[in-house]
């Protein structure tokens, strides 16, 4: 492996640079994935078939908690990458750990929210609206869950192997993924929740 020391660790080998660009392209595909879900959501949002609509089941408190938690986790993963670039392994691990805890917290609130919806009579089979609502939120939630385990594996690897071109590369790519999930959440927050409660 040729290592180019003039670049940050995560960019230092050709393989690393390929992986970063490849992941950006994957994020392009993810934009389309969520774009399609939003297209379906906007099409089906008024088709409640006598079941509850958004205004009836959305509650501002859990949504706000989720938003703040996820925004903060996006900030802490940014700090983790900043620490990584300064070569501070411990700080990096701490921030990564905090990010994952916040991610778990987000998931906890989301699960509470889902239980609440089902309680209110808005299960996934109730109407076209509830089907697409829970699917869109669920797809984002599944991404966060996957990210949680992925981040955990990276944390273990950095802890064991230190900051090498490979682990730095994985951490950086993970940070891209995590920020992207935050971006998706912003759109969910604005155009599903706030629009629904407006």
């Amino acid at each position, binding site marked *: 492996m040729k290592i180019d020391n003039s670049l940050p660790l995560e960019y230092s080998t050709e393989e690393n640079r390929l992986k970063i660009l490849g992941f950006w392209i994957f994020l392009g595909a993810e*934009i389309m994935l969520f*774009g399609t879900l939003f*297209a379906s959501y*906007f099409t089906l949002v008024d088709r409640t078939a006598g079941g509850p609509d958004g205004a009836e089941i959305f509650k501002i408190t859990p949504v706000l908690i989720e938003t*703040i938690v996820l*925004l903060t986790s996006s900030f802490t993963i*940014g700090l983790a990458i900043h620490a990584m670039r300064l070569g501070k392994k411990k700080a990096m691990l701490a921030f990564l750990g905090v990010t994952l805890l916040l991610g778990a917290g987000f998931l906890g609130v989301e699960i509470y929210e889902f239980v609440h919806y089902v309680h209110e009579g808005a299960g996934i089979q109730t109407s076209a609206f509830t089907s697409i609502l829970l699917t869109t939120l669920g797809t984002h939630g599944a991404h966060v869950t996957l990210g949680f385990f992925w981040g955990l594996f990276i944390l273990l690897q950095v802890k064991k192997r230190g900051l090498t071109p490979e682990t730095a590369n994985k951490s950086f790519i993970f*940070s891209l993924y995590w920020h992207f999930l935050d971006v998706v959440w912003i759109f969910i*927050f604005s155009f599903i929740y706030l629009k629904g409660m407006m």
Partner: protein
Amino acid sequence: MKELFPAKQVMGFVFSLILTAVALLVYFMDMSFELGMTVLLVTAFIQAGLQLVVFMHAGESEDKAAIYTNVYYGLFIALVTIFGTLLCMIWGYI
């Protein structure tokens, strides 16, 4: 020592909290649908751009052009899909 303080990240975080607060006005204030949607569109897209540039470092590598083209193209196609679908499925029937 200056380098140690993550000024960029902190500013980004503060800014994103402010944008969230502005978006929340839609909930707490009585707005027309058009005005509300405008506020949401503006805050959401600024916030997304912020994440992209400040946190994701989209423009830092030699592949800057490819990355931006990719993201903008994806965004364009996604918007075309959303509005085209609405055109075909809802608005087109009027």
